[in-house]
């Protein structure tokens, strides 16, 4: 019976050794979702959405997320249409073949900040601001990494050649093209929460964790049931197995 566990342990061991990063390891923070059965703090994620819209969205897209998905954060359809209508996008060509802008609606994906990849690069000194939909999954220990990074802007140590970027001790190579985006009080929270830098960052990371893994809560709650079921089934199968084999020995 230990063979499965054993092979799994060996595998985990191999993977625990698979880490060779020169940048500083991100600081571990206890998010609402950090524990295996943790959930997304909806209020925090809603505030994070506000930070994203008012600060990040000017450069970073969120194209895999649709406004309708915001129902998952507790917004209703009217609220979602109100959020979406702040953004404009190209409509389908009309009967004359002209493309006219229209306001985004419920069913649209988050509107991208730039017309295309090159326009995004040109507007940002040649560094493309990556889409944030999957950022938490696209980095190792993503939530902690993004939090550490956004809090990790400091002056470069003496003699460190920065060039055109900014110094950040959590970035691989310690040079990041993005200037420090958040300083605290960048937004005025609708729910009255004090918008300190750390608060903003935690809220944003909570929001981005949700955009990366909208399935997180469903997955964990379904998982708990499935594992419990399989556990019971395994015991029953084991008992059946022992019964059947005990007949053989006689």
């Amino acid at each position: 019976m230990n063979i499965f566990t054993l092979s799994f342990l060996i595998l985990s061991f191999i993977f625990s050794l698979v880490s060779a990063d020169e940048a500083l390891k991100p600081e571990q923070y206890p998010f609402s979702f950090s524990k295996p059965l943790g959930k997304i703090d909806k209020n925090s994620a809603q505030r994070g959405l506000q930070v994203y819209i008012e600060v990040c969205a000017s450069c970073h897209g969120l194209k895999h997320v649709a406004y309708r998905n915001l129902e998952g954060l507790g917004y209703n359809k009217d609220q979602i249409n109100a959020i979406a209508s702040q953004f404009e996008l190209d409509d389908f060509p009309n009967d004359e073949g002209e493309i006219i802008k229209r306001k985004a609606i419920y069913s649209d994906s988050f509107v991208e900040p730039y017309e295309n990849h090159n326009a995004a690069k040109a507007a940002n000194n040649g560094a493309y601001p990556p889409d944030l939909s999957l950022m938490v999954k696209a980095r190792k220990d993503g939530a902690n990494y993004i939090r550490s990074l956004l809090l990790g802007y400091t002056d470069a140590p003496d003699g460190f050649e920065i060039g055109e970027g900014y110094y950040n001790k959590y970035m691989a190579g310690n040079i990041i093209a993005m200037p420090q985006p958040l300083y605290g009080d960048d937004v005025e929270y609708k729910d009255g929460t004090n918008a300190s830098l750390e608060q903003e960052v935690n809220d944003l990371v909570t929001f981005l964790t949700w955009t990366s893994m909208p399935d997180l809560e469903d997955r964990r709650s379904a998982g708990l049931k499935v594992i419990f079921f399989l556990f019971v089934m395994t015991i029953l199968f084991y008992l059946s197995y022992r019964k059947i084999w005990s007949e053989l020995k006689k």
Partner: protein
Amino acid sequence: MESSKKNTKGIINWIDYRLPVVSFLKHSAVDYPTPRNLNYWWNFGSLAGFFLLVQIITGVILSMHYTAHVDHAFDSIEHIMRNVNHGWLIRYIHMNGASFFFIVVYIHIFRGLYYGSYKAPRELLWWLGIIILLLMMATAFMGYVLPWGQMSFWGATVITNLFSAIPLIGDNITQWLWGGYSVDNPTLSRFYTLHFLLPFLIVGVVVLHIVALHTHGSNNPLGIDRKGPQDSIPFHPFYTIKDLFGLSFALTIFFAVVFFAPDFLGHPDNYIPADPLKTPAHIVPEWYFLPFYAILRAIPDKLGGVIAMFSAIFVLFLLPWLDTSKVRSATFRPIYKILFWIFLIDAIILGWVGSKPAEGIYIIISRIATLYYFLHFLILLPLLGKFERNRPLPESIGKPVLAE
């Protein structure tokens, strides 16, 4: 009640007389005489079959929602994850199912190594198994390309470039594989087709594998032939229930990963869309390729590395003749038993070093481990059969079991 039972039996007999499916199943999955002393390591064969089935079912479903085009592939995966009903579950099962398939198959192979299951008369059974492994590797590699993330793209670039090491025609072969001058849309498209096709070839070879298995029956932990009917028990219900128990246990672990750590075995870089202009800092293949990747990088010569990597698998074909000992099970081979464990550790070290950057101490470790890998097969095993004195073999399977 009685008469309806009689009727059912009549219908079954009618069908079986014309198409003997029932008697075939009865012969090969119910009455099939199986050694009575198989331990849990023998569970992994049917478990591998199960995971193959899971991969085919989830794969066919994913293909209904996936788009094999460089502009849409990455987005279509996210569409599956976010929009398709239960799409995230099906994709995570497929992703982790591949890893579990390999775990199970590797354990199955090492069981064969330990108990000498490759020895006469099971050489072809062993060969078919290696062919399955090769097909699995090709399928898994091409499947990993389909999400068209950074690791997909650069993994495909590196692996296809291996073929450019072939003298004279190497470049032509890589261009032929790519359908262009780099990994691009034609490559993605054909990899998708082949990723869909190869699993059915695997099913075909699995059928042959089972035919070969049933010709001489399973090997067993003692590695001795069965002397009579007292050494066997019918497959059903004894091994069906044992396999079901093993399956249920394995599924518990599998779904623990699927639901609580679905990206644990993957690489974060593959959630970044492929960018032909930017290579990730560390390119690492999926974990199940790491030992072979380490062998590839251990050799400082391009062609040499490729040859070494492929030889590492092809040497397995020769194993039935390289191992000159007549005794199958390591239980009765005191020195081979030690060599087996050293070899297993060597393989794990190769896997570990394959995940590390190719520099400094890691290169030295990978060279020593690679050398030992071939030493084990090409020198130690042939010599060992000549010099090793095995412990006395039991007279029959039934005896030690009855003695317990």
